C-alpha cells in the first residue's frame, strides 16, 4: 500500500544536509536579523519613519511576549502534537512557573533573607533572591513534577476524559493562586494583588547611554530578547532531539495507535508521563521568563482562554511540527497583542468606521479552531506523518465506502466521481 511507503522515514543517508538544517539556520538568521534591526533602532541609526512604524506595528515588547507564547506552545506541542494527549489546562504550568519566579525572585517572603547570586532591587529588605538562571531551572523542575503529579492518576483515562481532567487542573491551580492569600493562615500568593516587583535580571544592557553589565530595567527589551531567544532555542533543540530519539518515536506510536504501541512493548504510562513532564517543563521556563518580562505575577491572567489560544497556536501551525508551531505561535501572539489593534486602527482610519476590533479576538480564535479542524486539520505547516494520521478516515476504507459516501468522507468524493464516470461510459447508448 502506498501509505506504508510514505510512512516509513527516508534512510538517513539520503536526506541532504541542507534539507536537515534549513529550518534551524532560518531560525538563527531570523533571530539575528530581528536583533540587528532593533539594535539599530535602539542605538538611533534608523530614520524616524522606520522607528515609528516599528513602535506601532511590531514593538519589541510584543516580540518578547510572543516568544513566551512560543515557549508555551512548544511545550504544549510535545503533549498534544507528539503524544496526542489533549491538554486543555496548560496555562496551569505557565502559572506555576510564574509563581515560582515570583517566590524565588522577590521580597514577597520578607521574613526570610536569602540571596544566592540574586539581584534584589536596591532599598528592599528580606525576601528570597535567587539568580535568574537558577530560578529557570527551579521553575522547570517544579513544573515537571507537577506535570507528573497531574498525569499519574489521570493518564489511564480515555483521551477525551483526560482533556476534561487537565481542564479541571487548569481551573483549580489559578484559583488556588487567586484565593491563596490565606491558605490556613499562610499567605501563599498574595491573592489578587499578586507578587511583585520581580527582581530584574542582571545582564548586558544595551542602549544609547552606553552598554554594560547591569540590571535590566523595564526598557531593556533588547537584552531580554536575547535571553528569550536563547530559551526558545533551547526548547526547540530539546523538542527536535527528543522527536527523533527513542522517546519521540514512542510518543508518535502512542499518538497513532495506543493499542498497537503497547503491543509493541512501548511502556504507555512511562511514555505519557514523560510527555507531560517535558511539556510542563517548557511551561515552567516560559512562566519564569514571563514573570521577569511583566515584573509582577498576577493570578487573573491565567484563565481558560490562554489554554485555548495556546491550543489554537499548535493547531494552526501544524500539530507535531516544531517550526509550524513556532510560526503559528508568533503569528497569533502578535495578532493578539498588537496586530489586531493596528489592523483595526488602519481600517477604521481608511473607511471612517468605528469598530472595536480587539473585542472580536476570541471570536476569531474560535473560528480559527473550527475552520482549521473542518478544512485543514493538519495545520498550515504539517509534518508529513501527522498529515496522514489526521487525514485518514477512522475506519477501514471498505467500511467508509459502504457508509454514506457522499456526505461523510469528502476525500472520497473524487473516487465516487470516477466510479460514476466509468459506469456512464460502460452503459450502451
Amino acid at each position, binding site marked *: 500500500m502506498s501509505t506504508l511507503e510514505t510512512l516509513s522515514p527516508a534512510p538517513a543517508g539520503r536526506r541532504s544536509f541542507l534539507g536537515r538544517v534549513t529550518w534551524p539556520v532560518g531560525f538563527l538568521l531570523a533571530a539575528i536579523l530581528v536583533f540587528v534591526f532593533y539594535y539599530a533602532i535602539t542605538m538611533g541609526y534608523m530614520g524616524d519613519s522606520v522607528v515609528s512604524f516599528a513602535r506601532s506595528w511590531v514593538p519589541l515588547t510584543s516580540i518578547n511576549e510572543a516568544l513566551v507564547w512560543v515557549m508555551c506552545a512548544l511545550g504544549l506541542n510535545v503533549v498534544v502534537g507528539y503524544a496526542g494527549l489533549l491538554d486543555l489546562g496548560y496555562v496551569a504550568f505557565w502559572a506555576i512557573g510564574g509563581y515560582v519566579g515570583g517566590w524565588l525572585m522577590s521580597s514577597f517572603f520578607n521574613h526570610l533573607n536569602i540571596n544566592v547570586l540574586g539581584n534584589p532591587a536596591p532599598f528592599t529588605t528580606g525576601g528570597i533572591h535567587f539568580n535568574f538562571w537558577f530560578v529557570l531551572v527551579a521553575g522547570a523542575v517544579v513544573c515537571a513534577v507537577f506535570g507528573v503529579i497531574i498525569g499519574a492518576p489521570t493518564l489511564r483515562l480515555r483521551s*477525551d476524559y483526560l482533556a476534561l481532567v487537565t481542564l479541571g487542573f487548569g481551573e483549580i491551580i489559578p484559583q488556588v493562586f487567586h484565593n491563596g492569600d490565606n491558605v490556613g493562615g499562610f499567605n501563599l500568593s498574595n491573592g489578587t494583588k499578586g507578587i511583585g516587583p520581580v527582581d530584574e535580571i542582571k545582564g548586558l544592557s544595551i542602549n544609547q547611554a552606553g552598554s554594560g553589565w547591569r540590571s535590566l530595567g523595564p526598557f531593556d527589551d533588547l537584552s531580554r530578547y536575547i535571553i528569550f531567544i536563547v530559551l526558545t532555542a533551547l526548547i526547540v533543540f530539546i523538542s527536535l532531539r527528543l522527536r527523533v530519539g527513542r522517546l519521540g518515536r514512542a510518543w508518535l506510536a502512542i499518538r497513532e495507535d495506543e*493499542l498497537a504501541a503497547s503491543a509493541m512493548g512501548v511502556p504507555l504510562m512511562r511514555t505519557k508521563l514523560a510527555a507531560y513532564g517535558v511539556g510542563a517543563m517548557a511551561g515552567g521556563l516560559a512562566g519564569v521568563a514571563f514573570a521577569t518580562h511583566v515584573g509582577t505575577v498576577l493570578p487573573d491572567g491565567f484563565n481558560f*482562554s490562554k489554554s485555548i489560544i495556546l491550543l489554537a497556536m499548535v493547531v494552526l501551525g501544524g500539530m507535531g511540527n516544531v517550526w509550524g508551531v513556532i510560526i503559528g505561535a508568533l503569528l497569533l501572539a502578535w495578532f493578539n497583542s498588537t496586530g489586531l489593534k493596528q489592523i483595526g486602527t488602519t481600517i477604521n482610519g481608511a473607511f471612517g468606521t468605528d469598530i472595536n476590533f480587539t473585542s472580536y479576538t476570541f471570536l476569531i*480564535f474560535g473560528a480559527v479552531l473550527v475552520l482549521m*479542524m473542518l478544512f485543514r486539520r493538519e495545520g498550515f505547516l504539517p509534518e508529513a506523518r501527522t498529515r496522514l494520521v489526521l487525514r485518514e478516515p477512522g475506519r477501514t476504507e471498505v467500511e467508509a465506502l459502504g457508509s454514506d459516501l457522499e456526505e461523510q468522507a469528502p476525500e472520497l468524493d473524487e473516487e465516487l466521481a470516477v466510479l460514476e464516470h466509468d459506469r456512464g461510459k460502460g452503459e450502451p447508448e
Partner: protein
Amino acid sequence: MALRTRAVVEPVAAIIILVLLAGWLIWNLAESPSQFFQSGIDGLSNGVLYALIALGYTLVYGIIELINFAHGDLFMLGTLFSGYLVTTVLGLHKSNVEGWLGFALTLIAAMAFCGVINVTIEFLAYRRLRRAPKLAPLITAVGMSFILQQVGLRWNGSTQRQWPSVLPAGQFSVGSINIDRSFPVVVIVTAGLLAIMTWVVTTTRAGKAMRATAQDQDAARLMGINVNRTISFTFAMGGALAGAAGLMYQQTVGTTRYDAGFQLGLIAFTAAVLGGIGNLTGAVLGGLLIGVIQGFNDGLPHGLGQQWSQTVVFSVLILVMVFKPTGLLGQTVGEKV
C-alpha cells in the same frame, strides 16, 4: 506487583476519603442542623439545573462519544433568549396569570431556539468530522464554545444583567428551612421534562433508533435507520433541555452574562461524569449530587466557602476519574477499537 499494590491502595484510599467525608458531614450536622439542611436545599435547587444541562452532555456523548463543549454556552444563550423574550418582548415582570402564560410560552420558545442552534452546529461542524480522529471534533467543540460565548457578548454586553422574574417571589418555611417559592416550579418542570425524555428514549421509534445508533452506527444504518437524522434528533433534544435550563436559571437566579455557561457547563459535565456518562439516570443523580456538594461547601460552617466552590467541584471530577472512571451508574465498556 505494581498492579497488586494499586489494587490494594486504591480501595483503601477511596474508603478513607469517604469516611473522612462522612465524618465531616456529621460534624457539620451536629453543630448546626438547620444550616445543614438549608445549604442542602440550596444546593439541590442548583442541582436540578445541573441535572438538566448534564442530560444534554450525556445524550450527545452517549450517541457520538463527543464531549460537546459548546453545550454550556448554548445554555447561556438560552438564558439570554429567555430574558429577552420574557422581559423585553413580552414585557412581563410579575407573577400572575399572564406571567405563567409567558413562562410556558418562553419555555417552548427557548427549547426550540436552543434545539435549532444545537442541530445547526451539528450539521455545520460535527457531522463532517464524524469519521475524523477524536481530537478533531473535540477541538471543534471548544472553538464553537468560544464562538457562542462571543455571540452572547455581542448580544448582551460584558456586564451582568438582571431581569425580573415571573415566578412567585419570596420564600416559604418548612421548620427552620427557607425554600424559594420558585423551587417547586423548577422541580415540577424538570420532572416533567425528564418524564417526557425518558418516554421518548425508551418507548418511541425515534428512541429505539437513538439507542441503536449509539451501539453501532454502521449496523444501525444497515437496519435502515437514518443515522444522520437520529443524531440530529439527539442534538435537538439536548439543546431543548439546555434551553429549558436556561429559562429556569434566568428566572430563579435572575442574572446572567456571556460567560455564565462556561462554568456551569463544566460543573454539569462533572455531574454527567459523576453519574456515569452516557447514562440518563446517572446524569440526573450526578447533577443533584454535585449541587448538594457545592451547597454544602458554600453553606456549611466548616465548608471551604464560596471562593473555593470551583476547586471543590473539579476535585470531585478528578477523584471520580481516578477511583471510578465509569461513574456511579456507568458500566465498564472497553474503548471501541
